[in-house]
């Protein structure tokens, strides 16, 4: 049994080497220890069980072979429980039903993490658990094929799966490790294969000893490694992002409208493909901490989500229509000069509380006083324009907000900005938990705002959710607690409205990055969505429930996030920056983001293309697994159709090889017929003799033999051999035909450089 121990060790080493391919997928190496544990547990438990069976004399029995994978699955489960759910495991180690459920929970969160993270991914529990499950299962399969099925080389196919993971998920150049690790693993398995083959030969014949297998294995391994290194250089690869840009706008080169505006016609997906931020606006303000730049307010909510209502009025922007700042409320005057760089939109981004606007050029810019939106008439667009803005920002204190009274029920603002379609019960249930009718408007707003911003409630920034704010989207968001600014703002506005307080969603930009010259640069990565709530006597007050990074967060002293309030001194929470799209508040998701849990590690969204690549990779692996059976079937068809006795006998002997029917390797036709007859049965002796006679006549007789139907007898013999073989042998013959592998080896022996032929 030492041979099996050796093969089991080779499997473990090969899988560990192959797992190195996963290194580029993760940002930190903490995934490695659980994977190591899983591989050792699976192959170690398998080897132990096999050793026990051998000692009990029950090796190679069907119950024995079934027991091995069962024990291995248990071992894998134990590792998963011990690592990921020790709390409810027995002695912190052994799986219990409760801890198994915990593990399943971790695994399912892993699927979400796959969707949310980009590589290199943070090794969060769920993701690592999935990888442990993947590698553990692969180890089990390879162990089954290599040790149980005695086909170590075939087990190497599984290493391809490990290769596929980083190839499908990482962008840019694929690390050398991705090929080197699995290649070395494959070399290990090939060595084990060679070793096993020689060990087998040693039983049957003299003159062979296991040591001779090392050199060819090393040589083959070296060739495999070289091929692994050279092939990637020769295979044409997609440029980074090219897959997604293939799905893009198709508007040709140049700056398209997609990245530069909130135009309703903008194609969302184009944004996905912009790896570099596009400079949109240059802002020269007289304050250090300007507020958000408003572009457009989404004041209508229907089943289809947030959208722009009618721009009801169209007033000139000469100052006559600007609302004066509310009296008795602290305000801050902000003067700014805003220049459009790549920005090209019919909505003019301005600071809230607009008091004066002077736009260069001769475009007809109009104001809708209700929504505060400045828009261009007659195709006026922002391209190349500069506009001077004077605004009075409302800076209410907490006390002033708390003192605000509810609006009268017949107030037009109250009526218009609390309109809602019937809401999903999940939303209303949630709201009922947060507010009650006795609370002041501010209390209700705070309840909603704190609910969304308190980290304890488990809201996680995620770019993978569907881009929308329809009823279902919001309900999903509230239940799954995963979303981005579009959902955060949309949900808050809906909840605030549902609690009876007027609210709307605003699209625009965070004020951008400060430049050395003191100005600020706004890029498409600064696009954002937030909420404005109407307070009686104060007007529209902005709230931002989305976690923004410290550099981009806008200081809203009256709306301190619950999580920030809870950890005032700690590092500023992480944050996303998002880009807007059409008026249905679909926001671009091409931005960078750091999840709340880990401030200093970066991750982002996985485009669907990558998911497709995963799927394609899986299909490819399946196709690879089916390849031996398909190739064998084709080979068989070709041989039998040829009708040439040599080909027919090749097929018969291959069938015998596949079914493990003992046949003299160097038998004469007559001896081969005798050997097959031993298994096929005496009633097939005439067929076998006819087949042997045909071969003799074809190869050794002076004149060509008359053509005879050989396929018929060959099928008869084939059927008899299969009937006489066990089910396991039959299945193996179909799925992993050993004869095919032998053919490949023979081909390699003939065509690849080799040391002098092994002595026989």
């Amino acid at each position, binding site marked *: 049994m030492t041979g099996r121990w050796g093969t089991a060790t080779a499997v473990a080493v090969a899988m560990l080497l192959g797992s190195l391919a996963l290194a580029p997928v993760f940002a930190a190496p903490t995934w490695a220890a659980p994977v190591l544990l899983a591989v050792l547990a699976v192959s170690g438990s398998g080897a132990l069980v096999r050793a026990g069976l051998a000692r009990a004399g029950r090796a190679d029995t069907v119950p024995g072979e079934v027991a091995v994978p069962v024990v291995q699955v248990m071992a894998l489960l134990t590792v998963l429980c011990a690592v990921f759910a020790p709390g409810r495991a027995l002695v912190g180690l052994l799986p219990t039903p409760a801890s198994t459920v915990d593990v399943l929970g971790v695994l399912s969160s892993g699927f979400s993490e796959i969707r949310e993270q980009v590589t290199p991914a943070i090794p969060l529990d769920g993701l690592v658990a999935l990888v442990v499950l993947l590698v553990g299962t692969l180890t089990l399969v390879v162990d089954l094929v290599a040790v149980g099925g005695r086909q170590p080389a075939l087990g190497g196919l599984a290493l391809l799966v490990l290769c596929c993971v980083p190839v499908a998920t990482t962008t840019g150049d694929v690390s050398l490790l991705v090929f080197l690790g699995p290649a070395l693993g494959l070399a290990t398995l090939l060595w084990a294969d060679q070793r096993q083959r020689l060990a087998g030969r040693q039983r049957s014949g003299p003159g062979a000893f296991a040591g001779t297998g090392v050199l060819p294995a090393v040589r083959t391994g070296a060739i495999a490694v070289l091929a692994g290194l050279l092939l990637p250089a020769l295979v044409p690869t997609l440029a980074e992002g090219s897959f997604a840009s293939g799905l893009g706008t198709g508007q040709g080169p140049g700056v398209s409208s997609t990245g530069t505006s909130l135009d309703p016609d903008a194609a969302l997906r184009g944004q996905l493909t912009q790896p570099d931020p596009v400079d949109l606006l240059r802002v020269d303000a007289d304050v250090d901490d300007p507020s958000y730049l408003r572009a457009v307010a989404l004041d209508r909510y229907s089943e289809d989500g947030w959208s722009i209502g009618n721009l009801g009025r169209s007033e000139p922007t000469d100052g006559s229509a600007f609302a004066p700042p509310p009296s008795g409320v602290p305000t801050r005057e902000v003067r700014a000069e805003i220049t459009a760089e790549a920005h090209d939109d019919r909505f003019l981004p301005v600071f809230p509380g607009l008091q004066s606007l002077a736009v260069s050029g001769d475009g007809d810019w109009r104001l809708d006083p209700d929504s505060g939106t400045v828009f261009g008439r007659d195709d006026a667009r922002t391209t190349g324009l500069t506009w001077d803005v004077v605004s009075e920002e409302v800076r209410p204190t907490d006390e002033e907000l708390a003192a605000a009274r509810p609006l009268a029920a017949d107030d037009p603002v109250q009526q218009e900005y609390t309109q809602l379609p019937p809401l999903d019960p999940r939303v209303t249930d949630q709201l009922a938990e947060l507010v009650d009718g006795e609370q002041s408007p501010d209390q209700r707003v705070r309840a909603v705002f704190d609910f969304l911003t308190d980290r304890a409630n488990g809201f996680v920034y995620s770019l993978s959710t569907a881009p929308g704010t329809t009823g279902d989207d919001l309900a999903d968001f509230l239940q799954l607690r995963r979303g981005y600014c579009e959902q955060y703002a949309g949900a808050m506005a809906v909840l605030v409205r549902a609690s009876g307080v007027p609210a709307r969603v605003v699209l625009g930009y965070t004020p951008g990055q400060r430049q050395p010259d003191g100005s600020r640069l706004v890029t498409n990565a600064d696009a954002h969505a937030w909420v404005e709530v109407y307070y009686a006597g104060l007007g529209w007050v902005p709230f931002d429930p989305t976690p923004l990074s410290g550099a981009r967060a806008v200081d809203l002293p009256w709306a301190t996030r619950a999580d920030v309030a809870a950890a005032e001194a700690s590092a500023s929470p992480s944050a996303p920056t998002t880009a807007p799209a059409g008026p249905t508040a679909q926001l671009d998701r091409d931005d960078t983001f750091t999840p709340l849990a880990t401030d200093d590690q970066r991750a982002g969204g996985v485009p669907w293309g990558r998911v497709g690549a995963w799927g394609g990779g899986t299909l490819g692996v399946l196709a690879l697994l089916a390849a031996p059976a398909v190739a064998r079937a084709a080979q068989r068809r070709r041989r039998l159709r040829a009708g040439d006795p040599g080909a027919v006998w090749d097929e018969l002997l291959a069938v015998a090889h596949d079914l493990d029917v003992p046949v*003299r390797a*160097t*038998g*004469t*036709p007559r001896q081969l017929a005798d050997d097959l007859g031993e298994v096929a049965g005496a009633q097939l002796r005439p067929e076998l003799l006819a087949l042997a006679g045909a071969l003799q006549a*074809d190869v*050794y*007789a*002076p004149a060509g033999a008359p053509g005879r139907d050989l396929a018929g007898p060959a099928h008869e013999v084939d059927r008899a051999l299969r009937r006489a073989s066990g089910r396991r042998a039959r299945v193996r013959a179909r799925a992993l035909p050993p004869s095919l592998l032998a053919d490949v080896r023979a081909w390699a022996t003939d065509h690849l450089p080799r040391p002098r032929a092994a002595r*026989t």
Partner: protein
Amino acid sequence: MGAGSPRHGHPAAQVDVQAEGARIAGAMGTVVVGKPDVVRLALVVLLAEGHLLIEDVPGVGKTTLAKAMARAVDSEVRRIQFTPDLLPSDVTGVAVFDQESRTFEFRPGAVFANLVVADEINRASPKTQSALLECMEERQVTVDGTTYELARPFMVLATQNPLEMEGTYPLPEAQRDRFTARISMGYPDRDAELAMLDDRAVVDPLTRLRPVADAATVRAMVDAVAQLHVADPLRRYVVSLVEASRRSPDLRLGASPRAGLQLLRAARAAAALAGRDHVLPDDVQELAAPVLAHRLLLTPDAALARRTPERVVAELLAAVPVPRRR
């Protein structure tokens, strides 16, 4: 029969080798009881125009085999008992000065016969041994510048005592190589031995043996065998076997090219005796051990491991693939 150029009897096409062979073998079988394989191998060697080395203890019927074959084909048999004082001229013949005619007259030696039984060949001096072995190869004798052709068919059945004995000169490998095949008679089984005792008590079965063929028929059979079809794959197979023996780690000396030639000839004879018009790998496999084993020299290691040449040949057969394609 004496010296003389070979005569051609029946045209090859008209000889049924299988039937004639069966008749000869049957006749010999009445004398060499219970040894059909030995009889058959002797017949194969005869038809392959080779020589047979019989290695066995005295008294198991080596001479009887030779005599039975000679009687069955109605040809001349001579027997030489090799002793240390046997001279080469005793084997080949000698030119004697005739006082009356005052000329040298050639007195043919023992090799001038169709079948020559060379008993205990390893007891003679190497010089005498080599004289016989040269005749076997050349099929002619040259004495004092005159060349005398040997009879056709001509076959030497040499016996050799396998036991280590005082005063023996074991055949060197170069000379063993000249024998087509080596067999061991083996003791007869109990029934055959009983029958033998019973028969001998009455009359020697050899005297009852009637000839079933003549030398001319054998010559025709030999010619027919020589023309038997050998396919290219079979030639390749024989060469592969011989080559494999040279690469074997157990052998100090592998099979010579002559060994391959004689293996193919013997296989032809076997195929003809089986009534086939072509040679099969089965024929080669059947004859590989008797034809090759006595030519192989084991390495000291292999000898220490108590491996035998026959075993090595069996392993060669198990390792060299039989061609399945033209």
